[in-house]
């Protein structure tokens, strides 16, 4: 018990200091207070540039609704049309999010899926791992269309790409 009491102030001080350090060394695109800042299409940070590669932003710039670094993966559904129950997003790690509008073609390495067209996909990168969620539906090469489970309209908007 006494150990807990003595460690209390130290813990608080440590958390305050670590918060300052994280903020000082954090991504320049994340403003204080978790306000999301737009990513520059022309001069992205190295992290943002890698996310643009993984999410194929360049060929689909006109279809990008918004892109940003969300501080916690579990909050991505506040900014993109997801339910919040996606198991891939149940973490407190930062998540890059790119939301697209309309159809985008993808090639999978799967006999069953093959080449697909995804409608309104949301690309999320957490710890370098990319996950592409389809929010409206997926059309397969044989013409089959599988509708995605409905998701609510997000309560907050992702910032659009800056020049």
């Amino acid at each position: 018990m006494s150990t807990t009491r003595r460690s209390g102030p130290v813990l608080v001080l440590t958390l305050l200091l670590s918060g300052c350090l994280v903020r000082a060394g954090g991504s320049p695109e994340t403003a204080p207070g978790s306000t999301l800042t737009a990513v520059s299409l022309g001069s992205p940070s190295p992290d943002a540039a890698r996310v643009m590669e993984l999410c194929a932003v360049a060929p689909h710039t006109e279809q990008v609704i918004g892109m940003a670094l969300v501080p916690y993966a579990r909050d991505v559904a506040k900014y993109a049309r997801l339910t919040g129950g996606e198991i891939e997003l149940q973490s407190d790690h930062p998540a890059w999010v790119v939301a697209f509008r309309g159809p985008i073609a993808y090639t999978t390495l799967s006999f069953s899926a093959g080449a697909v067209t995804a409608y309104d996909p949301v690309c999320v990168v957490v710890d370098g791992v990319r996950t592409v969620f389809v929010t409206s539906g997926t059309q397969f090469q044989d013409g089959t269309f599988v509708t995605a489970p409905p998701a609510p309209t997000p309560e907050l908007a992702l910032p659009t790409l800056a020049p």
Partner: protein
Amino acid sequence: MRPWQRRPGDRRWLLTRERHQPSVKAVVLSRRRWTAAAQPNRWISTAFAVALVATLAAPSRTFAWSAACNTSSEVSHGVAQNEAHTGVIGAQAIIEWFNDALCTNANPSTVSLSSAWVALEGSSALDIYQVGFDKCQQAGCSQGNPAGTSFYFLAYGRNGNATCPGQVLPLAQEAPKGLAGAGSLTYSVVKEPDPDHPSQYKYFASIDGVVQGSQTTTAIEGCWGGVVQGQYADEVYDYGDQTGGTVRNHQGFTYVRWHDATYWRAMNRVYSSPCDVINDPTNEHCNVASNHHDWFFSWDARAP
């Protein structure tokens, strides 16, 4: 056919198999180098020598075969064996890779790739967890992956349901192991205890025993509604892409295994029987070995 296919009792085939696993030996010896401080020079010399020999012994083409891309004939096709069993929780095989040629004169819209993997699959078209290697160009590359050079990959996909809202596309992403060289490695996806939480299980994807990624049991069993089968496959897309092997040198899938609730089980197929999936039987060939129930070989009839 290869000598080690014809002579099951001959130990020469074992020696041949060892020649096809160069990178493993080199890596293991390199790691030992740091722990065997008493004789560092000896280990360094040995590692260097093995790496040199392995490089020289790696599978290679007698000559290159290539065909022009044919964008009007692009469809997911290849060959595969599927092990569908109630309660399957793992798939494993040694897959040979020759660093195949892709079609030539590709343009940005060409979907061109050559790939092979082991995977677990669920019931929906998106349900798959793969580990393997891929070589792609132009539109055949999943975003962010190396183009024109082969690399190891992971991919996970699922359809949406009440437990797992949202569809996830099974897009290949380069695995931590990075770029892939020619040779034979063991690829595995299997449910095992999580070392970080021993009371829990996860599905681990590994290459030669080194974990490349994992998925939770919820991601596989909950989101898919259960595993349907293990899959062992190679795939090409453009008509001009070469499938895994040539007429002279077939691509080997050896020691094909699936895991039930307790044990690894060997694939048990009739000698020389055709593979479960051969999407383009005119050009693609795939048969079980003539002397091993758990080996199969594929090749492209157009590639001498």
